[in-house]
C-alpha cells in the first residue's frame, strides 16, 4: 500500500521528468534544424531524388493497385502514343497524328529508333498488339471502355511506323483515350496468359524513360533508374527512389525525402526561406454534397436544392476546414483552374435571406451521410449549423469511408458528402456525372451518384459535346452545359483543395503540372529535360 505522501512524492518526480521531456521537445521545435542547404547540383549528374513511397503494387499496367499513385509509377516505365504538358496533349511515341473519316479513324505516325529496355525496337506491331491484348485483358487504368464497350474496332498496321485505329463512333475524348494507353512489348506479353499473375522481371520492360531496378512489396520501396537508350528527352533525374515514410514532415525536414505536401499550418517554415520553394497544386481535388432524389422526392424541386446552395457557407468551409488552402467550387462543377471552366455561370454566394425566401417557411429534416475523416466531420457540422438557420434540420451520420462509399453506391442515403480527385479531367466527366440513364459506367469515382436526377437539356448537351471534334464548338457546348448545371443545382460542389507542394530547388526544381492533374510528382515531364 502506498501512503499519501508517497504518491505525491512519486508524482513530483514524474512531473519533473515530463517537464524536462516537454522542454526538450519544445527546444526541438524552436531550433531551426531544417536541412535545406543541399549542395547545388550544377550538372544534375547522377541526381538522386527521394520521394515518399509505400507499396502501390508492381508497376505493370495490370498489377499496380487501384488506389493511390501506383499508376504514375507504371507510367515512368511505359510510354504512350501521346503525353500531356501544361497545355494539352503533345506528341510522344507518335510524332504526329491525323483524325479521318468523320472521327472514326485515327492514324498515328511513330517515332523511329524507339527502343525497349531490353534493346529490341518498338514498331507498329507492338502498338497493335497492345490494344488487342487490352481487349482480352483489361488493364487497371482502362480508358478504352465507354458505355461498357471497348471503343476500338480494329487496328491496322500501315507500315512499320504508321498505325491506324478504327473506333466505334465519333467521340471527342477518343484521342486522349487511345493516346494515353501505355504501350507494352509484344515479344514479352504475347505468351502471357494471365497478366494478373505475371510478376516476372520482364513484366516491367517498357520503352519509357525509367527502368525499375528495385521493388519490395513489404517495405514499400521502388527504385527507378534512367534508361540510357531512351528515345525521348534526356532525363534530368538519374535515379528516383521511393522510400517508406512514417511522418512526412519529419522525414522531409530530416532530408529523408525531397518533397512534401504541406498543410497551411506549417507553411511559414518554408515560405520566405531560400532553401525551399512552395508551389500550389491545382484545385482538382474536392468535396461535394449529393442529393438522393429517389429517397427524398421533395429534392426533385429545384428551389429546395437552391436553398442548400444559398444556405451553406462555402467560403466558411474553405477558411475553417481547408484553413484557407482551397477555393469555393464552381456550381458548374469544372473548377476554376480547369481548361474549360466557364467563369460566367450563376454563382451562389452564401445568402441566408435568399435561402429563407426560397424555402418559404417550410421545414425539412435530412440525414447526412459522411465518412470518418476529421475534415468531413467538420464540414458536416458547419453545414448543419448554417442550414438550421434556414429551417433545414440535418442529422449527421458518420461511418468509415468504405462503408459510406458502399451505401452511396447502393443509393442507401438521403444526403452524402464525398471527397475525391479527378476534377481536372476531360470535361466529358460532366456527362459521366450529370447524364441520367439506366447504364452507369466508367472509370470515374463520380459516376452515377445522383439518384433520381433527370434533366433533358443537360442530357442533350452532354451527348452533344461528346460528338464535337472541333475545339471551339465543343468549348461552346461545355460552357453552356456548365451554365445549365449551375441553374439546376443537381448537387453542390463544396470546395476544391489546393495542396502546397514544397521542395528544395537547389537540389531539383524541374517540377511541373500537366493541365489536368493536381500533383507534380505524378507528371512524367517533371523528371525530363524541357525545351
Amino acid at each position, binding site marked *: *500500500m*502506498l*501512503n499519501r505522501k*508517497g*504518491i505525491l*512524492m*512519486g508524482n513530483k*518526480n*514524474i512531473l519533473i521528468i515530463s517537464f524536462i*521531456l516537454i522542454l526538450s*521537445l519544445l527546444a*526541438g521545435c524552436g531550433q531551426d534544424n531544417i536541412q535545406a542547404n543541399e549542395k547545388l547540383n550544377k550538372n544534375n549528374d547522377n541526381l538522386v531524388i527521394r520521394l515518399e*513511397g509505400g507499396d502501390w*503494387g508492381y508497376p505493370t499496367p495490370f*498489377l499496380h493497385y*487501384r*488506389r*493511390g*499513385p501506383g*499508376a504514375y509509377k507504371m507510367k515512368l516505365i511505359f510510354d504512350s502514343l501521346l503525353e500531356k504538358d501544361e497545355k494539352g496533349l503533345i506528341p510522344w511515341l507518335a510524332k504526329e497524328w491525323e483524325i479521318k473519316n468523320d472521327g472514326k479513324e485515327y492514324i498515328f505516325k511513330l517515332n523511329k529508333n524507339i527502343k525497349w529496355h531490353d534493346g529490341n525496337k518498338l514498331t507498329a506491331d507492338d502498338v497493335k498488339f497492345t490494344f488487342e491484348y487490352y481487349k482480352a485483358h483489361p488493364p487497371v*487504368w482502362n480508358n478504352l471502355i465507354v458505355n461498357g464497350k471497348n471503343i476500338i474496332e480494329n487496328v491496322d498496321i500501315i507500315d512499320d511506323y504508321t498505325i491506324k485505329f478504327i473506333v466505334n463512333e465519333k467521340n471527342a475524348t477518343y484521342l486522349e483515350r487511345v493516346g494515353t494507353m501505355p504501350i507494352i512489348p509484344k515479344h514479352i506479353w504475347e505468351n502471357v496468359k494471365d497478366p494478373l499473375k505475371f*510478376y516476372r522481371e520482364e513484366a516491367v520492360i517498357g520503352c519509357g524513360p525509367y527502368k525499375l531496378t528495385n521493388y519490395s*512489396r*513489404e*517495405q*514499400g*520501396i521502388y*527504385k527507378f533508374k534512367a534508361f540510357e537508350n531512351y528515345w525521348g528527352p534526356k532525363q534530368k533525374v538519374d535515379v528516383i*527512389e521511393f*522510400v*517508406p*515514410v*512514417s*511522418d512526412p514532415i*519529419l*522525414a522531409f525536414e*530530416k532530408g529523408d525525402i525531397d518533397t512534401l*505536401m504541406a498543410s497551411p499550418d506549417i507553411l511559414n517554415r518554408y515560405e520566405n526561406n531560400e532553401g525551399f520553394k512552395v508551389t500550389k497544386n491545382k484545385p482538382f*481535388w474536392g468535396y461535394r454534397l449529393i442529393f438522393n432524389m429517389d429517397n427524398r422526392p421533395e429534392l426533385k424541386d429545384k428551389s429546395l436544392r437552391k436553398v442548400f446552395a444559398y444556405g451553406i457557407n462555402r467560403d466558411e468551409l474553405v477558411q475553417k476546414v481547408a484553413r484557407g488552402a482551397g477555393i469555393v467550387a464552381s456550381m458548374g462543377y469544372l473548377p476554376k483552374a480547369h481548361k474549360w471552366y466557364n467563369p460566367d455561370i450563376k454563382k451562389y454566394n452564401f445568402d441566408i435571406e435568399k435561402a429563407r425566401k426560397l424555402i418559404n417557411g417550410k421545414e425539412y429534416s435530412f440525414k447526412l451521410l459522411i465518412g470518418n475523416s476529421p475534415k468531413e466531420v467538420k464540414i458536416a457540422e458547419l453545414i448543419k449549423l448554417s442550414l438550421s438557420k434556414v429551417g433545414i434540420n440535418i442529422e449527421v451520420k458518420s*461511418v468509415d469511408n*468504405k*462503408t*459510406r*462509399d*458502399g451505401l*452511396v*453506391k447502393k443509393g442507401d442515403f438521403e444526403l452524402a458528402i*464525398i*471527397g*475525391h*480527385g*479527378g476534377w481536372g479531367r476531360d470535361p466529358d466527366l460532366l456527362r459521366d456525372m450529370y447524364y441520367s440513364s439506366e447504364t452507369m*459506367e466508367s*472509370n*470515374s*469515382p463520380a*459516376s452515377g*451518384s445522383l439518384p433520381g436526377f433527370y434533366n433533358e437539356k443537360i442530357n442533350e448537351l452532354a451527348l452533344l459535346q461528346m460528338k464535337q471534334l472541333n475545339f471551339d464548338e465543343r468549348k461552346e457546348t461545355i460552357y453552356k452545359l456548365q451554365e445549365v448545371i449551375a441553374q439546376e443545382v443537381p448537387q453542390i460542389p463544396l470546395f476544391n*483543395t489546393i*495542396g502546397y507542394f514544397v521542395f528544395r530547388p537547389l537540389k531539383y526544381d524541374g517540377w511541373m503540372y500537366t493541365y489536368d492533374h493536381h500533383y507534380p510528382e505524378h507528371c512524367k515531364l517533371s523528371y525530363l529535360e524541357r525545351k
Partner: protein
Amino acid sequence: MNKPIIGKALEYIITFFIILTLNFMVPRLMPGDPFTFLSNDEVGVSFTFTEEEIKKYKDYYGLNKPITTQYVDYLKNTLSGYLGYSIFYNDEVLNIITERITWTISLVFISTLISAFSGSLLGSISAYYRHRKIDKVLYFFFVSISQIPPFLIGLLILYYFGAYLKLFPLSGGITPFMEYNSYWHKIIDLAYHFILPALTLSFVNIGNFYLVSRNSVIEILSKDYITTAKAKALKKRRIVFVHALRNAIFPIVTRIFLSFGTVIGGAVLIENVFNYPGLGLLMKEAVFYRDYPLIQGIFTIMALFVLTMNLLSDLINKKLDPRLS
C-alpha cells in the same frame, strides 16, 4: 491422465473453429465491398471497376455463391492450408503474409523478452524496497505508463529519438536499396531500424511484468525461508534475485505466454506509427479495402499464433508446477 488432455485439446479445437467462423462473418458484416471506391485521398487516384468487371471478379473469388457455400469452401480451404487469393494485392494471401510475418514475430518476441526481463528485475527491486521511495516512484511510473496508448508512446519516441536527436531512422525495417558487404553489416542495419519500435513495444508491456513480478516477489519475501536467509546475513542481491525471484518466476513465465495476444495487438499499432513492414500495416490496409481473403488470412494466422502460445503456457505450467499435474 488422458481425459484432461483430450478435454484440453477439444477446448482448443472448438476455440479455433469459433475464431474461424468469426473471421468469416465479421468482414462480411461490415458494409461496403472490395469493389467500390467512390472517395479517395488527396494524393491518390482511384480506378473503379465497371459493372462487368465486378461481376467477373465476384465470380472469380466466389463472392456470388450463397453465403453457406462460401463458408464451407472457406473452412475447407483454411483447413487444407489454403488461405485464398487477395483481391487488392493480386497474390496468394499466404505469400503476402509470409513476406511480413517475420518482421512482426521478431518484434513481438524480442520486445516481450526485453520487457519481461527488465519488468521482473524492476519488480523484484520494487518488492524488496516495498513502501520506500524507490518502490513508490517505480510503482507510480509503471502504473501510469501502462495506461498510455501504445501509438502515443510510439509517436513520442519517434519524435524524440528519430527526429530531434536523429539517433535512429524514422521509418522502415531496413535501409532502402542498401548493398551489404557482410552479413554482420545487414544485421546491424536491421537492429538499427528495430530499436525504436522494439523499445516502444517493450515500454508498453513492461508495466505488466513489473506488476506481476512485484506482487509475487512480495508474497515470497514474506515466507519463512527468506527470513532465514536474511538471518544468515546473505547479501541483498542474493536474497532478491536468487531466493525470491527464482521462486516467483512461475507466474511471470505464464504471463509471457499469455501476453502474446495483447503484444500482437500493440505491435499492429506500433508498426503503423513507424511504418514498420509487418502484419500491422497490412492488416490496416486489408480492413480498409475490405479484402476479405486477406483479412481472414491475417486473423487466422494471428489466432493460430496466440492459441499455440496459450497451449505452450498450459504445458509449461504443468512442467513448472507439480501441483497442476
